[in-house]
């Protein structure tokens, strides 16, 4: 596992925030996932060694929390909120629009590797539903037209990259 020096620096800093090392598990997993995109078995081993835990103590955390992933995903992560307030405002239509734009299904990496689309539960922005998060960015009032606009943006960026 090749972590960036900045990630290693953050990890060493965050461990000092707790009187018990184990508390840092979630923060370390976030840091590693942000750096390398997902959490392979080596990441679990590495965190366990770093915090003087058994690998299972880390693995059980990785498998419980929805935000941690053990496998790579598309270049961009499109998370569509499907909980009640968003559903009332058309979130299922929003999700279907993304699926159509990238010829893929929820939970799968699109054929061009560009996106992974997922349903998530309430993102705490229900007043401006439907809500979509693309990577770390929140998008509000994402009706199908807005979803097409966001998709165009992602495709244009992919085209620029070539």
């Amino acid at each position, binding site marked *: 596992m090749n972590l960036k020096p900045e990630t290693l620096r953050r990890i060493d800093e965050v461990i000092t*925030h*707790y*009187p*018990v090392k*184990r*508390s*840092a*598990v*979630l*923060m370390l*997993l*976030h840091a590693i996932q942000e750096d390398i995109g997902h959490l392979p078995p080596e990441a679990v081993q590495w965190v366990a060694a770093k*915090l003087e835990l058994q690998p299972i*103590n880390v693995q*059980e*955390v990785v498998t*419980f*929390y*929805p*935000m*941690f992933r053990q496998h790579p995903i598309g270049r961009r992560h499109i998370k569509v909120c*499907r*909980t*009640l*307030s968003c*559903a*009332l*405002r058309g979130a*299922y*239509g929003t999700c*279907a629009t993304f699926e159509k734009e990238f010829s893929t299904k*929820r939970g799968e990496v699109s054929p061009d590797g560009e996106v992974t689309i997922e349903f*998530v*539960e*309430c*993102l*705490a*922005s*229900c*007043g*401006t*539903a439907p809500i979509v*998060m693309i990577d*770390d960015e*929140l998008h509000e009032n994402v009706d199908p037209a807005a979803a097409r606009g966001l998709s165009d943006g992602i495709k244009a960026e992919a085209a620029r990259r070539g």
Partner: protein
Amino acid sequence: MPAPAERRIIFRHIDEPGYSRDLACYQRNGGYTTLRKALAMAPAAIIDEVKKSGLRGRGGAGFGCGLKWSLVDRKSGKPIYLVVNADESEPGTFKDRYIIHQDPHQLIEGIMISCWANNVKQAYIYIRGEFPHGARILEEAIAEARAAGLVGPNILGSGYGCEIYVHRGAGAYICGEETGLIESLEGKRPYPRIKPPYFPAVLGLYQCPTIVNNVETLCHVKYIVEVGGEAFAQIGTPNNTGTRILCVSGHVQRPGYYEYEVGRITLGQLLHEVCGGPLPGRKFKAVIPGGSSAKILRWGESFTLKNKDGSSRTLAVEDLPMDFDTMAACGTMGGSGGVIVMDDSVNMVEALANINAFYAHESCGQCTPCREGSLWMKRITSRMVHGDARAEDGALLRSVADQIAGRTICAFGEACSWPTQSFVAKFGDEFTAYPAAKRAPRPEGAAELA
């Protein structure tokens, strides 16, 4: 009667043009003068003011904040921790988000005052994983405050020191439950703990006495110290003091966040006048008043409530004041302040199917009734909306829900059964009619409210 004006205390600067979240702007607007005032007071005197204020927690349960603080074990000799619940995970709730993103120093000042009052040297902010920018904003704000001597050792030259760190969750609703949150902060699966013996005030984080308070609650504490407990108690209504932020979502013209004195606005005023009424051509049908776990209210129903003197009064649903006690007397709860509105375009079986999918996904799985029951309720409503509804499904749902509530480790058991119990009780006819409607089977997974 026209709706009263909003009274913005906690949200005073939210969306204010020219207001920025940095320390300089906060201090230009009087920021951290209340912390200075608090540090000149005896800690016990601050707790006294909070008790006098009548402040009730804004996270969900509405528990008295002063009472919670007075239950903290101060004789154990162990350190006392303060944990800020910034998990904001109850569906329909979106208030703490704006405090964190737009006015983080208000929260930090509230935290430092509360820490001083309770002899806390270490506080953690537990923020949901889906707020990555919020976590960064808080870290930056804490760093600014630390550099200015407002957080860290020797705060404002008082000799008192206290640190704040930000801890991120990772997408699990149950981390909002205070003992699940504590487990998560210890680096484990967020399995809620059994009470007794694990009352956080006695055996919390690292088995030490711990206070868990919601973000909004701690901002109110700051305001209480600013104006005094008695002045705060004059705001709102008896036993339901202060202001609270009501988050309205779903089928209204103007969804959003509104701050009102507790109990001074009715549900009808809020939805019709403040939020502009139903969408064009539609009518209100149902409202969930306090986050998705709260029992649903049917538009058009009325309630007979007891007065203090023993007499009673009957109120239509739109005339209910939005306060903790009224909502409880009507069989539901003020909860987290998340008001979810449904109009006559919504089929209640489908709305419940959506809610049940949430709870089945979020049960932590420790207790059999909750783990299996939430899954069963989801399967039944999902089967119904996928074209295989049966006449007995309403009764079946009720019986599953009735076997969860009251039989679990944590209040998630109630949270997941209340929607089913109340939907079936109040809209039973739709559950009976659903099989006959022979709705076209939906594509797999595309179901609820598509």
